[in-house]
């Protein structure tokens, strides 16, 4: 078990989150089941008061969870300094059997929470609160995922043995890796990049033609393609090493923490993009969401494309 100040902070915060999530979850289920917006009964007025309290709890949990995701990555990176064999956060994630599941769950939850926040914002903008039932039913359901994430996170940190040697990212992110990650190395770079840029062009077309559902789906593909291309192609240009594919190392100071910028752009762009398709809103807001998504996704594309371009201009060859 590793118990440095960062892990301790995560443990304390997770305990607080679990406590508030259980309260919010209990109230959410009650509201989702008994809410009747037309009723003028004692129960309904009580639920209206409780819905404000519950929504406030959930909102602040989610708002804190977003920067805490970056703090989690920072912690992984910091632990890698004391874990034998680990060169970055990747080694820490791979150090236990829970790490990869936790990471995937964290990303899924991040998108679900963002969706909840969008839905909540739309709900409180209308005096009839049309999405109250839906948003609390959603939280009632996803709170299990959230509590699962918090518990898994604590189990993962508890299961890390600081004396045993772990794999470094060079081993984990390679074609010889023993995990499912090795499968992505069977993909052809040129084909992958064609799909990546073609998907971006489609996104622009869907933006111009205002096809919000297609735009949202193209964002889901964009997220997956971006993560894979970052590992397979763009990462190697950030490191300027053809065999270094780690998606964690560029979060370190050696690479000016550019990873935080890359992931923030990708996360913000795709969250707004996916929300534009799945969150019911007015035309004006929809247009704004589409625009924000396209701006952030474009900035992401420009940033990651700059690395191979500059490398080629300087060296006259590709890696």
């Amino acid at each position, binding site marked *: 078990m590793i118990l440095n100040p960062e892990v301790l902070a995560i443990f304390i915060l997770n305990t607080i989150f679990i406590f508030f999530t259980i309260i919010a979850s209990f109230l959410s289920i009650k509201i989702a089941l008994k809410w009747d917006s037309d009723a*003028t*009964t004692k129960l309904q*007025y009580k639920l209206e*008061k409780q819905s*404000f309290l519950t929504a406030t709890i959930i909102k602040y949990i989610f708002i804190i969870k977003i920067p805490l995701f970056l703090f989690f990555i920072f912690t992984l990176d910091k632990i890698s300094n004391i874990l034998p064999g680990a060169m970055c956060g990747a080694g820490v994630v791979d150090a236990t059997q829970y790490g990869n599941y936790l990471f995937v769950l964290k990303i899924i939850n991040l998108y679900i929470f963002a969706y909840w926040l969008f839905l909540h914002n739309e709900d*409180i903008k209308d005096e009839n609160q049309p999405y109250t039932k839906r948003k609390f039913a959603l939280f009632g359901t996803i709170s299990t995922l959230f509590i699962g994430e918090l518990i898994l996170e604590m189990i993962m940190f508890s299961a890390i043995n600081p004396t045993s040697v772990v794999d470094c990212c060079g081993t984990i992110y390679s074609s010889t890796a023993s995990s499912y990650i090795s499968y992505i190395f069977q993909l052809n770079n040129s084909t992958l990049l064609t799909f990546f840029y073609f998907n971006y062009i489609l996104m622009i077309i869907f933006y111009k033609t205002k096809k919000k559902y297609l735009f949202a789906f193209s964002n889901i593909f964009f997220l997956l393609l971006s993560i894979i291309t970052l590992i397979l192609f763009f990462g190697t240009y950030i490191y300027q090493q053809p065999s270094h594919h780690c998606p964690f190392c560029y979060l370190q100071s050696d690479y000016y923490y550019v990873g935080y910028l890359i992931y923030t752009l990708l996360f913000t762009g795709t969250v707004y993009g996916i929300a534009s398709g799945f969150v019911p809103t007015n035309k004006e807001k929809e247009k704004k969401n589409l625009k924000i998504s396209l701006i952030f996704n474009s900035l992401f594309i420009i940033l990651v494309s700059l690395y191979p371009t500059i490398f080629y201009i300087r060296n006259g060859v590709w890696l």
Partner: protein
Amino acid sequence: MIQLKNITKIYEINSREKVTALLDINLSFKEGELIVLKGVSGSGKSSILSLVAGLSKPTTGEVIVDRKKISKLPDNFASIYRRDNIGFIFQKYNLLPSLTVTDNILLPLVPLNLDTNIAQQKLERVMKMFHIEHKKDTIVKNLSGGEQQRVAIARANVNEPKIIIADEPTANLDKKLSLSFIDILKELKGKNKTIIIATHDPLFFNLNIVDREIEVSNGEIIL
């Protein structure tokens, strides 16, 4: 215009102690009416005012103003409703004592982000209407009780609300100033404002400008 349907209001002091302020009351007020709610302290008058103003929600029942269910509004929309429709006159005026008369009257206009010229026009109009323009730069705490009340009335009217709510407006005034307040009410009634006054001041009883007197006792309307 204003309807209170099957309203019950219970204040929960703690899990065991509850106070029933209003018990299944039904009331309606027409536009332009001047209503006096009379009754002893604790009878439920102020609870009615607070429900009409959207300051609190009933335990059961509903409050409808201009076909809008005020009691069902979320807090942020209730604030907008109050800002746009209600003018308050409080027993203790609730002015900001260290600010000038002008600043106090302008306060309700701050959230509206009005153009300075429009705000100035509104300010001058109410200061003239309630005869307080000569004191516009005076700090409120240096004013007499009657002057402070005129400032409070001016502030309540600066946003031209449709409904004026006054809770014991003459409780701190002598008879002369109370009569002068009644003159102001005449003026407001002339402008077709709906005015609801909660009071136990006998000066308001049997006044010719009052359309209806409603007696509230132990949370119920006495017919």
